[in-house]
């Protein structure tokens, strides 16, 4: 029997390649409309190659940060998602104790894009560097601007653990709320690093999908036999989460319960996943939520579409749930790999599935890898008549595993 107070999701917002409105977002997810396009890497000294990317149409022009200093694109996305989550939660920030309002944010490489452009400006274009370069490229810039936006005086913490960053941020906020340190938190993650040097770095690591020449949207193929890697994406996802008592007191509409969190580290390899660590993280999250594997109705996998990554996750999920025992999908073929923001985006997608009863299919998984022993949702989305609990996995470079569980509101 759990003794801690429930933590509820009362609002959310997002920026991605899938569309700005919820109808566009849901439609892209349920009709498998990928945001991937072909984009060239065209830098002197590097072999020219086209790669699939999932850029957002988000327009940063005309947006002024709360600090009034220039913003990295990722920070602007964080602010948009955060503002939308606050509006969605219908929370009057003036009416709450700001010392009990926290910001818990995740980003793998926040500021990298701005730093890339600054370096080009200095080294290649021989221009002077802006006076606020440091404060716009520091990894905690999104959290700092969100703190200014909300005037939060509670903890404002940035987690950087690669692809698990925002999942860890959300999980750590869950713990802080349960411990009674705060009443409310704005949580999530942002990432925007589709600039030449950064993209070239990922390409050099040989993890990006080969571009499907005639259809860029078919490039990223999680769990498919012919998968070759992922498409980098960009975006942000934010949530307002609060203790049940706080939500009840203000009469908040509850979107979901944030019910479980597990995290650990493989301590094994910088990039190769370790299925045993993944199993342990999922078990931790289930225990934390007071649930068993049989209670989970859908898993949004990490599913990066790398050869090794998908097989390790297939092994870990099969170990815990039994082969083909729980519907799973990877949505990275649609929104791309949002890196540090991925955990937040995929939790959001999982919560939308909870709310609508529709679980998105795994985009481009036309020919399921026979070594993948999972019930991968292929082709069309699948309806779940009574989805109660969903799991979102984030397994990062560096070995950090983070698993979140959300449960239906009532």
């Amino acid at each position, binding site marked *: 029997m759990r003794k801690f107070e429930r933590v509820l999701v009362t609002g959310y917002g997002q920026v991605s390649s899938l569309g700005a409105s919820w109808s566009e977002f849901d439609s892209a997810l349920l009709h498998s409309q990928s945001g991937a396009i072909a984009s060239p890497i065209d830098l002197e000294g590097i072999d020219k190659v086209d790669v699939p990317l999932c850029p957002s149409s988000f327009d940063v022009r005309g947006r*002024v940060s709360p*600090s*009034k200093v*220039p913003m990295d694109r990722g920070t602007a996305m964080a602010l948009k998602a955060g503002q939308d989550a606050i509006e969605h939660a219908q929370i009057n920030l003036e009416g709450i104790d700001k010392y009990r309002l926290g910001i818990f944010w995740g980003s793998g490489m926040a500021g990298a894009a701005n730093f890339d452009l600054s370096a080009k400006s200095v080294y290649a274009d021989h221009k002077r560097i*802006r006076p606020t370069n440091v404060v716009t490229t520091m990894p905690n810039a999104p959290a700092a601007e969100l703190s200014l936006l909300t005037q939060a005086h509670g903890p404002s913490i940035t987690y950087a653990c690669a692809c698990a960053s925002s999942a860890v941020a959300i999980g750590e906020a869950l713990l802080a709320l349960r411990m009674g340190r705060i009443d409310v938190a704005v949580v999530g993650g942002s990432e925007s690093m589709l600039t030449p040097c950064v993209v070239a770095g990922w390409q050099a690591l040989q993890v990006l999908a080969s571009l499907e020449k005639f259809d860029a949207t078919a490039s990223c193929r999680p769990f498919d036999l012919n998968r070759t890697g992922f498409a980098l994406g960009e975006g942000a996802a934010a949530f307002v989460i609060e203790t049940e008592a706080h939500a009840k007191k203000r009469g908040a509409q509850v979107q979901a319960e944030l019910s479980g969190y597990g995290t650990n580290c493989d301590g094994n390899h910088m990039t190769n996943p370790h299925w045993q660590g993944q199993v342990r993280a999922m078990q931790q999250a289930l225990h934390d939520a007071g649930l068993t594997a049989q209670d989970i109705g859908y898993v949004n996998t990490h599913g990066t579409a790398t050869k090794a990554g998908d097989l390790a996750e297939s092994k870990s999920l099969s170990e815990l749930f039994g082969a083909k025992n729980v519907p799973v999908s990877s949505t990275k073929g649609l929104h791309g790999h949002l890196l540090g923001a991925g955990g937040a985006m995929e939790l959001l997608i999982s919560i939308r599935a909870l709310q609508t009863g529709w679980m998105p299919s795994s985009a481009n998984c036309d020919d399921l890898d026979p070594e993948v022993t999972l019930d991968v949702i292929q082709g069309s989305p699948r309806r779940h008549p009574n989805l109660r609990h969903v799991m979102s996995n984030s397994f990062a470079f560096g070995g950090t595993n983070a698993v979140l569980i959300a449960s239906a509101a009532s």
Partner: protein
Amino acid sequence: MNKDTFTLLSELLVDQFGVDASIIHPEVKLSDLGLDSLSLMEFIFAAEDAFSLRIPEEKMDPRQADLTLGSICVVIDSMKSNA
């Protein structure tokens, strides 16, 4: 004070720094524009880039409390005319 200089600086303040256009006039003090020390540095930086010049500190110290928008225009105009 050159009207074009004032107009360009005003546009910078509105577009890049989110300053309310209704409070912008030549006599307004920079300290009353809602810009803190960092954003003030960025504003001067952006103004210098817009006019392709560098304002030496002896001509103008942006931290000076009573510095007005009009006085920046005058400094910029004098440097433009000497260029």
